[in-house]
């Protein structure tokens, strides 16, 4: 009853003409910056911040949120079309999405991503509306030990992700972990492997590595033989999923939504695991795991849903505890504070209009995104038909602008070029970049949480198994590792690999 009254208040707020307008502006801008490689929601929101000063707080937050989840939506577009993931969440989408695009199924991949995102976004919004306060308490239950074990599980799952040789995948994870060591140590403040360069004091940026290893390396590889590429892209078949496709994607979408929603609640980096976790689950459950990495539609549907659900539920710690789950959320808190509203435990009751208005606007925004994106797919698909000698310089320029805009420094652009070359070499050696990125993304928080857990327990490593949640997560990781390493399964896995080759 209470929820209904609250939702009515939310609809009343969000459906006002001006708020609908700001929601539309937000998701439109979000899609646009999501599609442009490298230019993320942070830079966009920062630039628009002074504009929001003059708006009512609800409208401001509705627009800024729209930019955030709109960018998650748009990010998958470049991942699928040109193998260029702009955020950690779309790295996984690139795996099968790009393969689908090369098989002439780019439209289907994009439609699947849009539909999956819509279903997941809508479901997660309901979750936020119904359970936000109790779920927020759950976020506090996750301490350093629990987060560490969660990251271990994620890392083990990452091995499942690889479609090539197991040894290569492991090696790439280690390279990623090593790259993650660069930067200032959180415990002592000592700079590690920064070679005296202040630009490396805060570590290497994710976008820099991703743009280099995926985007630039892909371009170099494509330039080897342009005729081959055009031949592959030539035929683009049906945009909308067929009845058969629907059967294949509904399960992954549902599971992805659940996984993403659950992980998104954890402010300490749960959301970045969502798409990886979903991909691993789908590959494990699939009757045809050999299709994963070769254009499996489930490999797009699941992770995209998980990533969007996670983007929605990551609002829970911000709206109910005042704790930002990521830099974008921190920026939104800044925008609210400047309006005289301090996000915190009291916000749901004190600012009921704001809270429910924003929650309902998220659902409306998801509808907008679907309406906005489905017709655009035809346009995007035509984009890859543009002759490559015209397309690739444009991609490179956008990559350079995007990377530069991260912290306004050319250093990052040179670094991206370096990773582009490295990515090309790895490619030639038959090493996939995805496990490397996973190691890079998961390594630093894993180390940080482990060391914090050990500091707080005064060196008692047993804390990792005496905390029930942590022990449970480690147990799951152990089981998963066993299934990967068991000889019979491994043999089967390698046979598939050879067959694919």
């Amino acid at each position: 009853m209470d929820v209904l009254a609250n939702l009515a208040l939310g609809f009343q707020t969000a459906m006002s003409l001006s708020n609908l307008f700001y929601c539309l502006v937000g998701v439109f801008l979000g899609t646009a910056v999501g599609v442009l490689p490298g230019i993320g929601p942070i830079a966009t929101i920062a630039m628009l911040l002074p504009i929001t000063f003059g708006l009512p707080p609800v409208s401001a937050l509705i627009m800024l949120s729209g930019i955030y989840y709109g960018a998650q939506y748009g990010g998958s577009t470049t991942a699928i079309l040109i193998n260029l993931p702009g955020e950690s969440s779309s790295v996984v989408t690139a795996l099968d999405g790009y393969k689908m695009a090369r098989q002439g199924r780019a439209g289907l991949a994009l439609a699947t991503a849009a539909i999956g995102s819509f279903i997941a976004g809508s479901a997660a919004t309901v979750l936020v509306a119904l359970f936000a306060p109790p779920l927020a308490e759950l976020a506090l239950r996750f301490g350093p030990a629990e987060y560490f074990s969660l990251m271990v599980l994620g890392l083990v799952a990452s091995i499942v992700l690889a479609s090539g040789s197991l040894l290569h995948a492991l090696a790439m994870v280690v390279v990623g972990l090593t790259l993650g060591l660069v930067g200032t140590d959180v415990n002592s403040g000592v700079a590690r492997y920064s070679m005296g360069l202040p630009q490396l004091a805060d570590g290497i940026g994710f976008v820099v590595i991703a743009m280099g290893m995926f985007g630039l390396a892909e371009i170099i590889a494509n330039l080897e033989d342009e005729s081959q590429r055009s031949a592959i892209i030539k035929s683009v078949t049906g945009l909308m999923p067929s009845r058969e496709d629907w059967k294949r994607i509904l399960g992954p979408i549902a599971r992805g939504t659940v996984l993403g929603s659950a992980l998104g609640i954890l402010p300490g980096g749960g959301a970045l695991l969502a798409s990886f976790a979903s991909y691993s689950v789908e590959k494990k459950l699939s009757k045809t795991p050999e299709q994963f990495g070769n254009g499996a539609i489930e490999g797009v549907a699941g992770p995209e849903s998980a990533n969007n659900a996670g983007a929605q539920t990551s609002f829970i710690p911000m709206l109910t505890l005042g704790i930002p789950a990521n830099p974008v959320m921190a920026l939104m808190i800044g925008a609210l504070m400047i309006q005289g509203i301090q996000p915190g435990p009291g916000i749901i009751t004190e600012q009921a209009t704001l809270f429910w208005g924003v929650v309902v606007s998220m659902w409306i925004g998801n509808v907008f995104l679907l309406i906005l994106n489905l017709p655009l797919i035809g346009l995007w698909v035509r984009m890859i038909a543009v002759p490559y000698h015209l397309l690739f310089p444009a991609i490179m320029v956008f990559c350079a602008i995007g990377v530069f805009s991260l912290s306004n420094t050319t250093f990052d652009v040179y670094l991206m070029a370096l990773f582009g070359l490295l990515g090309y070499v790895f490619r030639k050696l038959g090493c996939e970049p995805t496990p490397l990125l996973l190691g890079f993304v998961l390594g630093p928080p894993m180390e940080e949480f482990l060391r914090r857990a050990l500091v707080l327990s005064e060196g008692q490593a047993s804390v990792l198994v005496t905390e029930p949640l942590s022990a449970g997560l480690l147990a799951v990781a152990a089981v998963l590792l066993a299934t990967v390493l068991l000889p019979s399964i491994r043999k089967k896995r390698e046979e598939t690999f050879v067959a694919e080759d």
Partner: protein
Amino acid sequence: MKTKLLLAYGIFAVATALMTAPSMAQDYPTKAVRILVTFPPGGSSDVVARALSVPLQKALGQPVVVDNKPGAGGTIAAGEINRAAPDGYNLLMSNTTPISLAPFMLSPQPYDSIKGFTHVALVATVPDVVMVHPSVTAKTMPELIEWIKAQNKKVFFGSGGVGSIGHILGETFKKETGLNIEHVGYKGSAPMITDLMAGRLSFSFDTLPQNVPHMKAEKLRPIAVTSRTRSHVAPDIPTVVEAGFPALVSENFIGVSAPAGLPPAVLAKLHAAIQQSMDDPTFVTRLNDLGLTVRKMSQPAFVDFVQKQVEGWVEPVKASGAKLN
């Protein structure tokens, strides 16, 4: 011939200098002014820069562009302004971290925090707050000390990161009291506050404003603010001076600085424009809402303020042992 040529060059150089230099100082500004922020978007100094840019555009009659260049405790942005041309088009949103703390944790020190800049105007100050998890029974500083002693084991406190103001304050507190406490570092305040609210940490030092809602909801309990006078955001919280710990006073500032050697005419114009912007009622309301205290000061007084700040932090920074490279 050669001398004549040199002379001609010399006259030409002086003439061009004469033609451009005075026009620069008097007509300033003739193009967009850039303010470099030392932290990523969303932090206090970023929001202040963006809020200030609105009235400052009107006062200067030219666009004011806010750029973020985060990294290495803000020393990357501050270093860039330190090396920039002193023409008034490159400004720094200066604050405690890149001016008073971070450069002293780097070797070699990247710039002279006082002589390396023309410190133009103070804009605002903001205090830290000492706060505890509700399970800690202490309500005052002496009670907190008693409580820590009564635990008979190591007690943990958190901060937004190694070398942050909260960390240095905590180490100063440890040195003053000789208590058995240990610092736990985080990447920013948000994850630290999460652990404090969950009770994994017992107490912490952190910037006051963003923690007020947690205190209102009784998820955290304030003990003292680190300013000399009580904060308008939470006037019930006593100061560390009242509690008998003047060594813990820290007035984190946010101001505008330019490269050293800014022409006096430009400096005067810029200072006046910032003062005028600070009279803007919406700007004042916004900063108050952020929990910051708008503070006006003459330019020489600001230089003096920065100098005292830097001198005051040198010892605690050294004692804390924090290093950035």
